[in-house]
Each structure stands twice: as C-alpha cells, then as structure tokens.
C-alpha cells in the first residue's frame, strides 16, 4: 500500500521535473528575487525589509501558480489521456492514486521552495552582507508558505477529481484569493445580523484561511511570532488538507472513467 503511494508520488514528481513550463516559472521567481536586490539598493535603510518582502512574496505567489498549474491536471489529464486505465487496472486502489498524486505534487513544491529560498537568502546576504538572528524567522515564513501550498494542492486535486482543468483553475485560484482575505471575511461576518450572519460566518470559516499563514510582513519587519501560531497553523493546514483530500477521494471513488 505505502509502496504503491510512494511509486505514484515519485512518478508525479518526475513528471513535474520533466515539465519545461515549471522551469520557466522557477526562473521567473528567482529573477524576481534578484530584482529585490535592485529595489533594495534604491531603498535606503530598508533594504532588508524590501528583499524579504519581495522575495518571500515571489516564493509564495509562484508556488501557488505552480501548485494550481500542475494540480488541476493531476487527475483530469490522466482521465482525458487515458493513462489512468493502465494504472487502475493494476492492484492500485483509487485512494492510493489520489494520495500518491498529492504527495508527488507536494514534494515538487517543497523542492521548488527550497531552491527559491536559496535565492531569497542569497539576495538577503548580498544586501545585508551577513545574517542576523531574526532572519531565522524567514524559515518560519517559508514553512507557512509550504503549508499554504499543501492546502492549495489538495484543493486543486479536489477540483481536478470532478471538473475540467480550466474550471479547476478558476475554482482553486478564486479560493486562494478569497482565502487570502479570510480574516476580513470573518470580520465582515461579525458585523452582519440574522441569516446573513450565519451564512457569512459559515462561508468565512469554510474557505481556507490563508491570511493566518501569511506572516511575510511580520518577518520582514522582524516582529516576533508566537510559538503557538506554528502549532495552530500546522494543525489547521493538516486538517484542511485532510478534508479536501477526503473529498477528492470520495468523488474519485465513484467516478466512471469514460
């Protein structure tokens, strides 16, 4: 069981690595980190702030684009191209396929983030000439970015299990945008009354809360982060990802492959 998931994950990773479009995105993200150096140099006294802000935002945004770009095709492309037939006609359970695909994409994103993070730290070293203790918080921000990717991956997989790649992309990207304002949405819900309050609160808690995972600004300003936040965000991302993956499995288990 575990071995089959690992094999599927490894093949998904291999597919992503051999996809040239992915390299364009990574190159673009590294270029943006490089541009941060330039912007940092013309921003007197706040070079570090600009480099960290721009660099981490680039890592986050490009990672999200890659997660959606690859994630939306993970299941639907396999159905359209009928590559799934020769996989599911083997002793592979449908849920193993979904979980394997998820880990493959998650692994791809972790590796990408690692390389893009090297770019960010390189840019930081270039403008600051040395690392300071608060720079360790960048690692926490990167960890939260990875948690964000896990949620996006699972959502892209969920949409990919029942709709076309285009619709999946629209759904996933919309949820990313809405989720980035989840705190505002919750605040708005508190201002309403009656049925609207119920509805708005439900919707605000249903969408993924990406705003709690975004600590880029705090890290750039070298503000301390609560240790509790790390645990809280880890559990939240784990729960949300598990829910989205369960939904994907439930749908895919019942789907006829035409």
């Amino acid at each position: 069981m575990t071995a089959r998931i690992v094999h599927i994950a490894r093949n998904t990773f291999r597919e992503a690595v051999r996809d040239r479009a992915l390299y364009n995105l990574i190159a673009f993200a590294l270029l943006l980190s490089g541009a941060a150096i330039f912007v940092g140099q013309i921003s007197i006294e706040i070079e570090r702030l600009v480099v960290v802000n721009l660099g981490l935002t680039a890592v986050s945004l490009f990672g999200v684009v890659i997660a959606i770009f690859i994630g939306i095709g993970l299941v639907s492309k396999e159905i359209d191209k009928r590559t799934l037939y020769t996989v599911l006609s083997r002793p592979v359970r449908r849920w193993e396929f979904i979980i394997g695909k998820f880990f493959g994409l998650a692994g791809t994103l972790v590796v990408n983030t690692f390389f893009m993070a090297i770019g960010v730290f390189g840019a930081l070293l270039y403008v600051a000439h040395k690392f300071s203790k608060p720079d360790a918080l960048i690692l926490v921000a990167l960890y939260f970015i990875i948690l964000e990717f896990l949620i996006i991956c699972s959502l892209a997989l969920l949409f990919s299990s029942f709709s076309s790649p285009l619709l999946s992309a629209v759904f996933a990207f919309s949820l990313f945008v809405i989720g980035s304002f989840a705190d505002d949405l919750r605040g708005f819900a508190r201002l309403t009354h009656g049925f609207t309050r119920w509805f708005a609160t439900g919707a605000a808690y249903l969408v993924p809360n990406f705003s709690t995972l975004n600590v880029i600004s705090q890290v750039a300003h070298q503000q301390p982060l609560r240790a509790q936040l790390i645990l809280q965000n880890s559990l939240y991302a784990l729960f949300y990802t598990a829910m989205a993956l369960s939904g994907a499995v439930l749908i895919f288990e019942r789907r006829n492959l035409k």
Partner: protein
Amino acid sequence: MAAIEILGLEKTYMVGFWRKRPKRALEPLHLTVEEGEIFGFLGPNGAGKTTTLKMLMGLVFPTAGTARLLGRAWTDPEVKAQIGFLPEQPYFYDYLTAHELLDYYGQLSGVPAPDRKRRIEEVLSRVGLTDIKGLQLRKFSKGMLQRVGIAQAILHNPRLVFLDEPMSGLDPLGRREVRDLIEQLKQEGKTVFFSTHILSDAEALCDRVAIIHKGQLRGVGEIEQLTSSVQGKVEVVWQGTQVPASMKALGAECHVTGDTVRAVLAANQQDAAIDALRREHIRLIAITPLRTSLEAYFVEKLQHSQTAAGTTAGTAAGSNV
C-alpha cells in the same frame, strides 16, 4: 475453474444536459470463459465491447450485475495482480522511456526489483522493441505504442490477459507477431480475452467467441459450432460455357472461366442443381461444399438484429396509426 464469470453485468448511462435520459450501453451480460482459453469478444464499433472490458477492470461501474475473475470478486484489487490489460488505442506517460514506464508499472504490480529488469528486457524483446533505450514515448509511432501496451499487459506474468483491439494500429507484420504472441500466451497456460472487430484475427486465434451488437449478446460458442448454424453453400463446376435457365432459377451465382462454369448455391439446392445439369446433358466436373466463415455468421447475426429492430419499429409505427 472459470477464469471469467460475468453474471448479468449491465450498464446504462444518463445522457443529455438538462433532461437526462437513460442510454443502455450493455444489456445484462452472462458469459463464462474457461481458464486457458483464447476467447474473442466480437462486435462492430459501439457494440459494448470496451464498456464490458472497462467494467471488468473497475474503470466503469456497472448499473447492475457482478463478475468473478480467477474465482474472486472482480472488485478485489489483489486479483488485479494476476491480470494484464491493454486498453484500446493506449496512451502512456510520454515523458518516460519504455524502460521507465515498464519499471513503474512493474512496481505498481508488485514485481520484485531483482525480477523487474529481467522481465522488462524479456517483454520488450517479445514485442519486438529492442534498441529503444533512452527514447521517450512521445517519439514513438502508433504501432510502437501498441507494442509497449502489449508489453505492459504481460510484464507481471499475469494468468489472465485482457486485450482491447490488440491489432489496432499495427502493420501486417506487427499483426502477425501479435497473433504469435497470443498463441504463445495460450501455450503458457494463460487465458486471453480479446475484443476485436477484425474477424480473421478471431477466426485464426480463438477457441471460442462471443458476438455482441448494440449491447446485446448475439451468440457464443466455438467457431465451427456457430458457423454450422448458418445455411451452408456448395460450389458446382461443370464443363461448357452455357448456364441453363433452371440453374439461374435455383439462385446460383455463376461465373464462366474458359470452358468451365462455377456456380455457388445453397446446399439444400444441390440435388436440384444436379438434376438440372443432367436434364441438359451437361458434364458435371465437381461439387464442393463451401466452409461457412465466421464473417458470414457475424453478418447474419447483425442483419438479424437489424431486421428485428426494423420489425419492432414497424410494429410500433403501425400501432401509432
């Protein structure tokens, strides 16, 4: 033991956008294939062959019915370790090489690592794909992909092999090689279930065949048994160039070649034909019974179903009036 037992599998799709209406893709199907058989599943395009195979592979869920493969429930994932499947017009991960693809499939089928490399070389050689190392599948021709498809179906040494249109996309030499391969599989004691609409392939290979049309099973049995049910024909050859009117009246198809005439007519008209020739004092050279082909049986079954459908439609139209 039966290798395949299909117990009333049926499939109805809901079609249409707003107003969903049912469309029957497969009527309840009952079929048994014994272990070690080469079984042909014949039918024109859209007959329900692929739907049946997809249901057996767990790719499509039946509306009703069940099946057993190698004595176990067809939904049991473990039984799939003993099954090979070649889909119709297969398409594979084109960023992989044939070796990588087969290695991946071998892993999924649970082939141990030490055996995998040997098996990959073996099956690639069996399907005539050697010297392709490092070539990605996106650079393969349709025929080469079909060969890779057959290789992946037999890679894990399955007891039961399902092939959906295995000769599709192959040149005559390739078709011959696949025929030989299917025969080798039988000699190894494997059961082969293959769907095709190329009747000569089925006639050359199969122990038994089933004919399906518009989702309904029209006939099943050994080829000789099936074809014997079709009205036989005889060829009558006589000397001369004239065709007596009485022969034409018997419905004979006559061809004059040099100073001989060959006539093909229904076997039950044989005595009448001899009498006609005797009356005209024509010298009879030979009478040969003609073997009924599977094609004749197939066409008869299809025409019969179309006539039945026409009659039903006619009756329905009549009752409306």
